[in-house]
Protein backbone atom coordinates (compact mmCIF):
# COMPACT_ATOMS: atom_id res chain seq x y z
CA UNK A 1 0.00 0.00 0.00
CA UNK A 2 2.72 2.39 1.06
CA UNK A 3 4.80 1.16 -1.88
CA UNK A 4 2.03 2.05 -4.33
CA UNK A 5 1.82 5.53 -2.84
CA UNK A 6 5.55 6.02 -3.37
CA UNK A 7 5.21 4.92 -6.98
CA UNK A 8 2.44 7.48 -7.52
CA UNK A 9 4.54 10.11 -5.81
CA UNK A 10 7.44 9.27 -8.12
CA UNK A 11 5.19 9.66 -11.16
CA UNK A 12 3.96 13.02 -9.87
CA UNK A 13 7.52 14.24 -9.36
CA UNK A 14 8.50 13.12 -12.88
CA UNK A 15 5.49 14.92 -14.35
CA UNK A 16 6.25 18.07 -12.35
CA UNK A 17 9.89 18.02 -13.56
CA UNK A 18 8.77 17.64 -17.17
CA UNK A 19 6.28 20.49 -17.04
CA UNK A 20 8.58 22.55 -14.83
CA UNK A 21 11.38 22.33 -17.38
CA UNK A 22 8.97 23.39 -20.11
CA UNK A 23 8.20 26.50 -18.08
CA UNK A 24 11.76 27.59 -17.30
CA UNK A 25 13.73 25.95 -20.14
CA UNK A 26 14.80 27.78 -23.30
CA UNK A 27 12.53 26.65 -26.18
CA UNK A 28 15.62 26.54 -28.42
CA UNK A 29 17.62 24.57 -25.86
CA UNK A 30 20.65 25.92 -24.00
CA UNK A 31 23.77 25.94 -26.15
CA UNK A 32 27.20 26.51 -24.63
CA UNK A 33 30.24 26.86 -26.94
CA UNK A 34 28.30 25.19 -29.73
CA UNK A 35 27.29 22.21 -27.59
CA UNK A 36 23.66 21.82 -26.62
CA UNK A 37 23.75 21.02 -22.89
CA UNK A 38 20.01 21.29 -22.23
CA UNK A 39 17.31 19.99 -24.60
CA UNK A 40 14.81 22.14 -26.45
CA UNK A 41 11.71 22.88 -24.43
CA UNK A 42 9.40 23.77 -27.33
CA UNK A 43 6.17 21.88 -27.94
CA UNK A 44 7.69 19.98 -30.84
CA UNK A 45 10.45 18.39 -28.77
CA UNK A 46 8.62 18.20 -25.45
CA UNK A 47 4.87 18.24 -25.87
CA UNK A 48 2.77 19.04 -22.84
CA UNK A 49 1.75 15.99 -20.84
CA UNK A 50 -1.89 16.75 -21.36
CA UNK A 51 -1.29 16.86 -25.13
CA UNK A 52 0.19 13.36 -24.86
CA UNK A 53 -2.71 12.11 -22.72
CA UNK A 54 -5.22 13.71 -25.03
CA UNK A 55 -3.45 12.11 -28.02
CA UNK A 56 -3.96 8.70 -26.37
CA UNK A 57 -7.70 9.12 -26.73
CA UNK A 58 -7.72 10.10 -30.39
CA UNK A 59 -7.56 7.57 -33.24
CA UNK A 60 -4.18 6.40 -34.44
CA UNK A 61 -4.96 7.18 -38.06
CA UNK A 62 -8.05 8.99 -39.19
CA UNK A 63 -10.92 6.59 -38.65
CA UNK A 64 -8.73 3.97 -36.91
CA UNK A 65 -8.69 2.67 -33.36
CA UNK A 66 -7.78 5.02 -30.52
CA UNK A 67 -4.05 5.23 -29.83
CA UNK A 68 -4.31 3.97 -26.27
CA UNK A 69 -5.75 0.65 -27.44
CA UNK A 70 -3.00 0.25 -30.02
CA UNK A 71 -0.31 1.11 -27.45
CA UNK A 72 -1.84 -1.16 -24.82
CA UNK A 73 -1.96 -4.06 -27.24
CA UNK A 74 1.63 -3.46 -28.29
CA UNK A 75 2.64 -3.35 -24.61
CA UNK A 76 0.90 -6.66 -23.93
CA UNK A 77 2.73 -8.22 -26.87
CA UNK A 78 6.04 -6.88 -25.55
CA UNK A 79 5.11 -7.97 -22.02
CA UNK A 80 4.79 -11.54 -23.31
CA UNK A 81 8.21 -11.34 -24.94
CA UNK A 82 9.66 -9.76 -21.78
CA UNK A 83 8.17 -12.49 -19.58
CA UNK A 84 9.57 -15.25 -21.77
CA UNK A 85 12.97 -13.54 -21.84
CA UNK A 86 12.90 -12.94 -18.10
CA UNK A 87 12.08 -16.55 -17.28
CA UNK A 88 14.71 -17.95 -19.64
CA UNK A 89 17.30 -15.42 -18.45
CA UNK A 90 16.58 -16.00 -14.76
CA UNK A 91 16.81 -19.78 -15.16
CA UNK A 92 20.06 -19.56 -17.11
CA UNK A 93 21.42 -17.12 -14.54
CA UNK A 94 20.45 -19.43 -11.67
CA UNK A 95 22.02 -22.46 -13.31
CA UNK A 96 25.20 -20.55 -14.07
CA UNK A 97 25.40 -19.28 -10.49
CA UNK A 98 24.91 -22.77 -9.06
CA UNK A 99 27.53 -24.19 -11.43
CA UNK A 100 29.96 -21.43 -10.55
CA UNK A 101 29.38 -21.94 -6.83
CA UNK A 102 29.82 -25.70 -7.17
CA UNK A 103 33.05 -25.66 -9.14
CA UNK A 104 35.73 -23.07 -8.53
CA UNK A 105 37.11 -23.86 -11.99
CA UNK A 106 33.82 -22.92 -13.62
CA UNK A 107 33.74 -19.67 -11.67
CA UNK A 108 37.28 -18.77 -12.69
CA UNK A 109 36.72 -19.75 -16.28
CA UNK A 110 33.21 -18.46 -16.78
CA UNK A 111 32.78 -15.31 -14.71
CA UNK A 112 35.02 -13.12 -16.93
CA UNK A 113 32.98 -14.17 -19.97
CA UNK A 114 29.71 -13.55 -18.17
CA UNK A 115 30.87 -10.00 -17.52
CA UNK A 116 32.28 -9.67 -21.04
CA UNK A 117 28.96 -10.79 -22.50
CA UNK A 118 27.34 -7.57 -21.35
CA UNK A 119 29.84 -5.34 -23.09
CA UNK A 120 28.78 -6.58 -26.52
CA UNK A 121 26.51 -3.85 -27.92
CA UNK A 122 22.96 -5.05 -28.23
CA UNK A 123 22.45 -3.53 -31.68
CA UNK A 124 25.39 -5.55 -32.95
CA UNK A 125 24.15 -8.71 -31.31
CA UNK A 126 20.50 -8.53 -32.33
CA UNK A 127 20.98 -9.12 -36.08
CA UNK A 128 23.32 -12.02 -35.23
CA UNK A 129 20.70 -13.71 -33.06
CA UNK A 130 18.04 -13.00 -35.67
CA UNK A 131 20.28 -14.48 -38.33
CA UNK A 132 21.04 -17.68 -36.43
CA UNK A 133 17.74 -18.18 -34.69
CA UNK A 134 15.43 -16.67 -37.28
CA UNK A 135 15.29 -19.86 -39.29
CA UNK A 136 14.15 -22.06 -36.41
CA UNK A 137 12.28 -19.60 -34.21
CA UNK A 138 9.40 -17.19 -34.75
CA UNK A 139 10.46 -13.52 -34.57
CA UNK A 140 9.07 -12.99 -31.08
CA UNK A 141 11.19 -15.87 -29.75
CA UNK A 142 14.29 -14.25 -31.23
CA UNK A 143 13.49 -11.07 -29.33
CA UNK A 144 12.93 -13.13 -26.15
CA UNK A 145 16.40 -14.58 -26.53
CA UNK A 146 17.82 -11.07 -26.74
CA UNK A 147 15.87 -10.06 -23.62
CA UNK A 148 17.13 -13.20 -21.87
CA UNK A 149 20.67 -12.31 -22.87
CA UNK A 150 20.38 -9.10 -20.89
CA UNK A 151 18.36 -10.58 -18.03
CA UNK A 152 20.60 -13.51 -17.13
CA UNK A 153 23.52 -11.32 -16.13
CA UNK A 154 22.29 -9.69 -12.89
CA UNK A 155 20.82 -13.00 -11.78
CA UNK A 156 24.03 -14.93 -12.39
CA UNK A 157 26.20 -12.39 -10.58
CA UNK A 158 23.79 -11.63 -7.73
CA UNK A 159 22.92 -15.24 -7.14
CA UNK A 160 26.57 -16.29 -7.12
CA UNK A 161 27.23 -13.75 -4.38
CA UNK A 162 24.19 -14.98 -2.52
CA UNK A 163 25.16 -18.63 -2.76
CA UNK A 164 28.59 -17.75 -1.43
CA UNK A 165 27.17 -15.62 1.38
CA UNK A 166 26.63 -18.25 4.13
CA UNK A 167 29.12 -17.95 6.96
CA UNK A 168 31.75 -20.63 7.49
CA UNK A 169 29.91 -21.70 10.65
CA UNK A 170 26.73 -22.39 8.67
CA UNK A 171 28.64 -24.49 6.17
CA UNK A 172 30.38 -26.33 9.01
CA UNK A 173 27.06 -27.02 10.68
CA UNK A 174 25.73 -28.63 7.52
CA UNK A 175 28.96 -30.60 7.24
CA UNK A 176 28.50 -31.82 10.80
CA UNK A 177 25.08 -33.12 9.76
CA UNK A 178 26.78 -35.05 6.96
CA UNK A 179 24.72 -33.06 4.46
CA UNK A 180 26.13 -33.30 0.94
CA UNK A 181 26.38 -30.58 -1.66
CA UNK A 182 22.76 -30.76 -2.76
CA UNK A 183 21.24 -30.66 0.70
CA UNK A 184 23.57 -27.84 1.72
CA UNK A 185 22.39 -25.98 -1.37
CA UNK A 186 18.72 -26.51 -0.59
CA UNK A 187 18.79 -25.96 3.17
CA UNK A 188 21.51 -23.36 3.51
CA UNK A 189 22.84 -21.71 0.38
CA UNK A 190 19.58 -21.13 -1.42
CA UNK A 191 17.68 -19.58 1.49
CA UNK A 192 20.62 -17.34 2.36
CA UNK A 193 20.85 -16.27 -1.29
CA UNK A 194 17.26 -15.02 -1.43
CA UNK A 195 18.04 -11.50 -0.15
CA UNK A 196 20.56 -11.26 -3.00
CA UNK A 197 18.30 -12.89 -5.56
CA UNK A 198 15.40 -10.46 -5.38
CA UNK A 199 17.29 -7.23 -6.13
CA UNK A 200 18.96 -9.16 -8.95
CA UNK A 201 15.58 -10.26 -10.30
CA UNK A 202 14.37 -6.67 -10.26
CA UNK A 203 17.38 -5.63 -12.31
CA UNK A 204 16.77 -8.57 -14.60
CA UNK A 205 13.16 -7.48 -15.09
CA UNK A 206 14.25 -4.01 -16.14
CA UNK A 207 16.95 -5.45 -18.39
CA UNK A 208 14.43 -7.79 -20.01
CA UNK A 209 12.15 -4.84 -20.86
CA UNK A 210 15.04 -2.93 -22.40
CA UNK A 211 16.14 -6.07 -24.25
CA UNK A 212 12.66 -6.70 -25.58
CA UNK A 213 12.09 -3.12 -26.76
CA UNK A 214 15.53 -2.69 -28.30
CA UNK A 215 15.39 -6.23 -29.70
CA UNK A 216 12.10 -5.48 -31.42
CA UNK A 217 13.55 -2.34 -32.94
CA UNK A 218 16.79 -3.84 -34.16
CA UNK A 219 15.26 -7.03 -35.55
CA UNK A 220 12.28 -5.16 -37.00
CA UNK A 221 9.76 -7.38 -35.23
CA UNK A 222 6.20 -6.18 -35.67
CA UNK A 223 3.49 -5.98 -33.03
CA UNK A 224 5.42 -4.69 -30.01
CA UNK A 225 5.87 -1.31 -28.42
CA UNK A 226 9.44 -1.03 -29.70
CA UNK A 227 8.23 -1.14 -33.26
CA UNK A 228 5.54 1.38 -32.36
CA UNK A 229 8.14 3.85 -31.08
CA UNK A 230 9.99 3.65 -34.40
CA UNK A 231 6.83 4.03 -36.46
CA UNK A 232 5.51 6.94 -34.43
CA UNK A 233 8.85 8.76 -34.33
CA UNK A 234 8.71 9.05 -38.11
CA UNK A 235 5.68 11.26 -37.56
CA UNK A 236 7.42 13.29 -34.87
CA UNK A 237 7.44 16.53 -36.85
CA UNK A 238 3.74 16.48 -37.69
CA UNK A 239 2.44 14.73 -34.57
CA UNK A 240 5.04 15.07 -31.78
CA UNK A 241 2.75 13.79 -29.00
CA UNK A 242 2.25 10.44 -30.73
CA UNK A 243 5.73 9.02 -30.14
CA UNK A 244 5.46 9.98 -26.49
CA UNK A 245 2.34 7.87 -26.12
CA UNK A 246 4.39 4.85 -27.14
CA UNK A 247 7.22 5.82 -24.81
CA UNK A 248 4.73 6.25 -21.98
CA UNK A 249 3.53 2.74 -22.74
CA UNK A 250 7.09 1.40 -22.58
CA UNK A 251 7.68 3.16 -19.25
CA UNK A 252 4.45 1.74 -17.80
CA UNK A 253 5.51 -1.69 -19.05
CA UNK A 254 8.72 -1.34 -17.03
CA UNK A 255 6.74 -0.41 -13.91
CA UNK A 256 4.36 -3.35 -14.36
CA UNK A 257 7.26 -5.78 -14.74
CA UNK A 258 8.98 -4.35 -11.65
CA UNK A 259 5.73 -4.73 -9.72
CA UNK A 260 5.21 -8.32 -10.85
CA UNK A 261 8.77 -9.24 -9.88
CA UNK A 262 8.40 -7.82 -6.40
CA UNK A 263 5.23 -9.88 -5.98
CA UNK A 264 7.45 -12.97 -6.28
CA UNK A 265 9.19 -11.83 -3.15
CA UNK A 266 6.20 -11.92 -0.83
CA UNK A 267 5.75 -15.65 -0.24
CA UNK A 268 9.47 -16.40 -0.21
CA UNK A 269 10.64 -13.81 2.27
CA UNK A 270 8.20 -14.31 5.10
CA UNK A 271 10.74 -13.62 7.82
CA UNK A 272 11.39 -10.17 6.37
CA UNK A 273 8.11 -9.02 7.75
CA UNK A 274 9.36 -9.85 11.23
CA UNK A 275 12.98 -8.77 11.10
CA UNK A 276 15.16 -6.53 9.04
CA UNK A 277 17.64 -8.37 6.87
CA UNK A 278 20.82 -6.73 5.75
CA UNK A 279 21.45 -7.15 2.05
CA UNK A 280 24.33 -6.40 -0.26
Amino acid at each position, binding site marked *: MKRALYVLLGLAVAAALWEGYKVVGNPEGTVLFGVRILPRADDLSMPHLWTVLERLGRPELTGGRPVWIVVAQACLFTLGITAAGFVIGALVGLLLAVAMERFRVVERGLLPYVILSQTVPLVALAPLVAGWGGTIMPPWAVVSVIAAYLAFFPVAVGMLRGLQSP*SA*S*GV*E*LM*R*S*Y*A*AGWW*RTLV*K*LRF*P*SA*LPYLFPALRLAGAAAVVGAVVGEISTGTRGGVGRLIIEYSREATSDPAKVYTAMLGAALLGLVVAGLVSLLELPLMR*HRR*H*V*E*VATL
Partner: protein
Amino acid sequence: MTAVVVSSVTKIFNQGRTDEVAALSDVDLEVRDGEFVSLIGPSGCGKSTLLRLIADLIEPSTGTVTVAGQGAAKARKEQAYGIAFQQAGLFEWRTVLRNVELPLELRGLSKRERKARAEQMLALVGLEDFAGHYPAQLSGGMQQRVAIARALAVQPPLLLMDEPFGALDEMTRERLQSELLGICAKTNTSTVFVTHSISEAVFLSDRVVVMSARPGRITASIEIDLPSRDDAGRQSPAYFDKITEVRQALRGTPASAPSPRSSESAAAGTDAR
Protein backbone atom coordinates in the same frame (compact mmCIF):
# COMPACT_ATOMS: atom_id res chain seq x y z
CA MET B 1 34.47 -48.91 23.52
CA THR B 2 36.01 -45.47 23.89
CA ALA B 3 33.96 -42.62 22.55
CA VAL B 4 36.88 -40.53 21.32
CA VAL B 5 40.55 -41.29 20.84
CA VAL B 6 42.85 -38.49 19.75
CA SER B 7 46.37 -39.76 19.34
CA SER B 8 49.46 -37.62 18.81
CA VAL B 9 47.53 -35.04 16.83
CA THR B 10 49.22 -31.91 15.53
CA LYS B 11 47.37 -29.16 13.74
CA ILE B 12 49.18 -26.46 11.83
CA PHE B 13 47.06 -23.89 10.00
CA ASN B 14 48.35 -22.43 6.73
CA GLN B 15 51.35 -24.73 6.75
CA GLY B 16 54.34 -23.43 4.83
CA ARG B 17 53.03 -19.89 4.58
CA THR B 18 54.15 -16.84 6.46
CA ASP B 19 50.95 -16.82 8.53
CA GLU B 20 51.51 -20.36 9.72
CA VAL B 21 49.95 -21.11 13.14
CA ALA B 22 50.76 -24.16 15.20
CA ALA B 23 47.36 -24.54 16.89
CA LEU B 24 47.89 -27.97 18.44
CA SER B 25 51.04 -29.90 19.11
CA ASP B 26 51.17 -33.59 19.90
CA VAL B 27 47.81 -33.90 21.63
CA ASP B 28 46.60 -37.18 23.13
CA LEU B 29 43.08 -37.41 24.51
CA GLU B 30 40.76 -40.25 25.32
CA VAL B 31 37.10 -39.95 26.23
CA ARG B 32 35.49 -43.07 27.62
CA ASP B 33 31.92 -44.02 26.87
CA GLY B 34 29.58 -41.88 28.96
CA GLU B 35 32.41 -39.75 30.25
CA PHE B 36 32.08 -35.99 30.59
CA VAL B 37 35.36 -34.26 29.72
CA SER B 38 35.90 -30.52 29.93
CA LEU B 39 38.60 -28.65 28.03
CA ILE B 40 39.87 -25.55 29.73
CA GLY B 41 42.72 -23.22 28.88
CA PRO B 42 43.64 -19.69 27.89
CA SER B 43 42.07 -18.09 24.84
CA GLY B 44 43.67 -19.24 21.62
CA CYS B 45 45.13 -22.45 23.03
CA GLY B 46 43.30 -24.59 20.51
CA LYS B 47 40.20 -25.82 22.36
CA SER B 48 37.85 -25.08 19.50
CA THR B 49 40.38 -26.51 17.08
CA LEU B 50 40.52 -29.77 19.02
CA LEU B 51 36.73 -29.95 19.06
CA ARG B 52 36.55 -29.33 15.34
CA LEU B 53 39.12 -32.04 14.74
CA ILE B 54 36.96 -34.53 16.64
CA ALA B 55 33.97 -33.36 14.62
CA ASP B 56 35.96 -33.89 11.37
CA LEU B 57 35.33 -30.30 10.34
CA ILE B 58 39.07 -29.90 9.85
CA GLU B 59 41.75 -32.52 9.37
CA PRO B 60 44.77 -33.06 11.59
CA SER B 61 48.18 -32.25 10.11
CA THR B 62 49.52 -35.42 11.72
CA GLY B 63 48.03 -38.03 14.01
CA THR B 64 44.64 -39.73 14.04
CA VAL B 65 41.21 -39.09 15.49
CA THR B 66 38.87 -41.98 16.21
CA VAL B 67 35.23 -41.55 17.19
CA ALA B 68 33.21 -44.53 18.43
CA GLY B 69 35.80 -46.95 17.10
CA GLN B 70 35.92 -45.57 13.56
CA GLY B 71 37.65 -42.76 11.73
CA ALA B 72 36.35 -39.27 12.44
CA ALA B 73 35.20 -38.81 8.84
CA LYS B 74 33.15 -41.99 8.94
CA ALA B 75 31.67 -41.06 12.31
CA ARG B 76 30.64 -37.69 10.96
CA LYS B 77 28.97 -39.27 7.97
CA GLU B 78 27.03 -41.50 10.35
CA GLN B 79 26.12 -38.44 12.40
CA ALA B 80 27.60 -39.95 15.51
CA TYR B 81 27.74 -36.63 17.33
CA GLY B 82 25.84 -33.42 17.97
CA ILE B 83 27.70 -30.14 18.07
CA ALA B 84 27.05 -26.68 19.50
CA PHE B 85 29.47 -24.04 18.30
CA GLN B 86 30.90 -21.07 20.13
CA GLN B 87 28.66 -18.81 18.01
CA ALA B 88 25.04 -19.88 17.93
CA GLY B 89 25.01 -20.01 14.12
CA LEU B 90 21.24 -20.14 13.69
CA PHE B 91 19.59 -19.83 10.29
CA GLU B 92 17.98 -16.40 10.31
CA TRP B 93 15.22 -17.32 7.86
CA ARG B 94 13.97 -20.18 9.99
CA THR B 95 11.89 -19.77 13.10
CA VAL B 96 13.35 -20.96 16.39
CA LEU B 97 11.34 -24.17 16.16
CA ARG B 98 12.43 -24.86 12.60
CA ASN B 99 16.04 -24.22 13.55
CA VAL B 100 15.84 -26.94 16.17
CA GLU B 101 14.09 -29.17 13.65
CA LEU B 102 16.89 -28.80 11.09
CA PRO B 103 19.07 -31.76 12.14
CA LEU B 104 15.95 -33.90 12.56
CA GLU B 105 14.84 -32.91 9.07
CA LEU B 106 18.18 -34.03 7.68
CA ARG B 107 17.77 -37.36 9.43
CA GLY B 108 14.46 -37.86 7.73
CA LEU B 109 12.16 -37.80 10.75
CA SER B 110 8.48 -37.30 10.05
CA LYS B 111 7.04 -33.83 10.43
CA ARG B 112 5.06 -34.68 13.53
CA GLU B 113 7.97 -36.40 15.24
CA ARG B 114 10.24 -33.47 14.44
CA LYS B 115 7.86 -30.94 15.87
CA ALA B 116 7.27 -32.92 19.05
CA ARG B 117 10.97 -33.45 19.66
CA ALA B 118 11.89 -29.86 18.89
CA GLU B 119 9.19 -28.53 21.20
CA GLN B 120 10.40 -30.79 23.95
CA MET B 121 13.96 -29.52 23.51
CA LEU B 122 12.82 -25.89 23.51
CA ALA B 123 10.95 -26.50 26.76
CA LEU B 124 14.15 -27.93 28.18
CA VAL B 125 16.06 -24.71 27.51
CA GLY B 126 13.09 -22.61 28.62
CA LEU B 127 12.19 -21.16 25.23
CA GLU B 128 8.86 -22.86 24.52
CA ASP B 129 7.19 -19.44 24.24
CA PHE B 130 9.56 -18.33 21.49
CA ALA B 131 9.08 -21.23 19.08
CA GLY B 132 7.57 -18.99 16.40
CA HIS B 133 10.13 -16.18 16.69
CA TYR B 134 13.02 -15.59 14.34
CA PRO B 135 16.61 -15.68 15.68
CA ALA B 136 17.10 -11.95 15.11
CA GLN B 137 14.29 -11.35 17.60
CA LEU B 138 16.15 -13.16 20.40
CA SER B 139 18.94 -12.04 22.71
CA GLY B 140 22.41 -13.54 22.37
CA GLY B 141 21.89 -15.88 25.32
CA MET B 142 18.54 -17.02 23.98
CA GLN B 143 20.10 -17.76 20.60
CA GLN B 144 22.78 -19.77 22.34
CA ARG B 145 20.08 -21.79 24.11
CA VAL B 146 18.40 -22.50 20.79
CA ALA B 147 21.73 -23.80 19.50
CA ILE B 148 21.99 -26.06 22.56
CA ALA B 149 18.48 -27.36 21.95
CA ARG B 150 19.43 -28.02 18.33
CA ALA B 151 22.51 -30.00 19.37
CA LEU B 152 20.54 -32.04 21.90
CA ALA B 153 17.59 -32.68 19.59
CA VAL B 154 19.18 -35.61 17.79
CA GLN B 155 20.09 -37.30 21.11
CA PRO B 156 23.59 -38.09 19.87
CA PRO B 157 25.86 -40.61 21.59
CA LEU B 158 28.58 -37.94 21.60
CA LEU B 159 28.04 -34.27 22.40
CA LEU B 160 30.60 -31.65 21.41
CA MET B 161 29.97 -28.27 23.01
CA ASP B 162 32.05 -25.13 22.60
CA GLU B 163 31.41 -22.67 25.46
CA PRO B 164 27.68 -23.27 25.19
CA PHE B 165 26.82 -21.42 28.39
CA GLY B 166 29.20 -18.52 27.85
CA ALA B 167 26.51 -15.93 27.18
CA LEU B 168 24.10 -16.96 29.94
CA ASP B 169 23.29 -15.51 33.33
CA GLU B 170 24.30 -17.49 36.40
CA MET B 171 20.82 -18.84 37.21
CA THR B 172 20.03 -20.03 33.68
CA ARG B 173 23.50 -21.46 33.44
CA GLU B 174 23.12 -23.53 36.62
CA ARG B 175 19.73 -24.78 35.52
CA LEU B 176 21.05 -25.81 32.10
CA GLN B 177 24.06 -27.44 33.72
CA SER B 178 21.76 -29.69 35.74
CA GLU B 179 19.61 -30.41 32.68
CA LEU B 180 22.69 -31.30 30.66
CA LEU B 181 23.97 -33.59 33.39
CA GLY B 182 20.56 -35.23 33.60
CA ILE B 183 20.45 -35.88 29.86
CA CYS B 184 24.00 -37.19 29.75
CA ALA B 185 23.41 -39.54 32.67
CA LYS B 186 20.08 -40.79 31.35
CA THR B 187 21.26 -41.53 27.82
CA ASN B 188 24.87 -42.35 28.68
CA THR B 189 26.08 -39.58 26.37
CA SER B 190 29.79 -38.92 26.14
CA THR B 191 30.57 -35.22 26.18
CA VAL B 192 33.47 -32.99 25.28
CA PHE B 193 32.77 -29.59 26.76
CA VAL B 194 34.84 -26.45 26.22
CA THR B 195 34.56 -23.80 28.91
CA HIS B 196 36.41 -20.86 30.41
CA SER B 197 34.87 -21.32 33.81
CA ILE B 198 36.84 -23.43 36.26
CA SER B 199 33.89 -24.00 38.56
CA GLU B 200 31.68 -25.05 35.67
CA ALA B 201 34.32 -27.49 34.45
CA VAL B 202 34.76 -29.02 37.89
CA PHE B 203 31.05 -29.27 38.61
CA LEU B 204 30.13 -30.93 35.31
CA SER B 205 33.06 -33.13 34.51
CA ASP B 206 34.37 -36.57 35.21
CA ARG B 207 37.67 -35.19 34.02
CA VAL B 208 39.04 -31.71 33.35
CA VAL B 209 41.69 -31.43 30.66
CA VAL B 210 43.88 -28.35 31.02
CA MET B 211 45.53 -26.90 27.94
CA SER B 212 48.18 -24.25 27.41
CA ALA B 213 48.88 -22.05 24.44
CA ARG B 214 51.55 -21.59 21.78
CA PRO B 215 51.64 -24.30 20.74
CA GLY B 216 48.38 -25.68 22.08
CA ARG B 217 48.93 -28.81 24.13
CA ILE B 218 47.47 -30.69 27.04
CA THR B 219 49.28 -29.90 30.27
CA ALA B 220 47.15 -31.70 32.83
CA SER B 221 44.25 -34.08 33.09
CA ILE B 222 42.46 -33.97 36.41
CA GLU B 223 39.98 -36.64 37.47
CA ILE B 224 36.99 -35.23 39.34
CA ASP B 225 34.90 -37.31 41.70
CA LEU B 226 32.35 -35.19 43.47
CA PRO B 227 30.09 -36.84 46.08
CA SER B 228 27.05 -35.54 44.20
CA ARG B 229 26.30 -33.13 41.38
CA ASP B 230 23.77 -30.82 43.00
CA ASP B 231 23.85 -27.91 45.44
CA ALA B 232 25.42 -30.12 48.07
CA GLY B 233 28.11 -31.07 45.58
CA ARG B 234 28.80 -27.40 44.93
CA GLN B 235 29.57 -26.95 48.62
CA SER B 236 31.59 -30.09 49.23
CA PRO B 237 35.27 -29.79 50.15
CA ALA B 238 36.18 -32.03 47.20
CA TYR B 239 34.66 -29.41 44.86
CA PHE B 240 36.82 -26.61 46.25
CA ASP B 241 39.92 -28.80 46.28
CA LYS B 242 39.46 -29.60 42.62
CA ILE B 243 38.88 -25.98 41.75
CA THR B 244 42.18 -25.12 43.37
CA GLU B 245 43.91 -27.95 41.57
CA VAL B 246 42.60 -26.88 38.16
CA ARG B 247 43.50 -23.27 38.85
CA GLN B 248 47.06 -24.22 39.71
CA ALA B 249 47.30 -26.38 36.61
CA LEU B 250 46.10 -23.44 34.53
CA ARG B 251 48.74 -21.19 36.06
CA GLY B 252 51.29 -23.80 35.04
CA THR B 253 52.59 -24.26 38.59
CA PRO B 254 51.01 -27.48 39.76
CA ALA B 255 52.64 -28.44 43.03
CA SER B 256 52.80 -32.11 42.09
CA ALA B 257 54.36 -31.79 38.64
CA PRO B 258 57.67 -30.10 37.91
CA SER B 259 57.07 -29.54 34.19
CA PRO B 260 54.00 -29.55 31.90
CA ARG B 261 55.48 -32.37 29.82
CA SER B 262 55.82 -34.84 32.68
CA SER B 263 52.43 -33.88 34.10
CA GLU B 264 50.89 -34.73 30.75
CA SER B 265 52.41 -38.18 30.69
CA ALA B 266 51.44 -38.64 34.31
CA ALA B 267 47.89 -37.69 33.40
CA ALA B 268 47.92 -40.06 30.47
CA GLY B 269 49.01 -42.76 32.87
CA THR B 270 46.09 -42.18 35.21
CA ASP B 271 43.70 -42.22 32.25
CA ALA B 272 43.92 -45.95 31.76
CA ARG B 273 42.43 -46.97 35.03
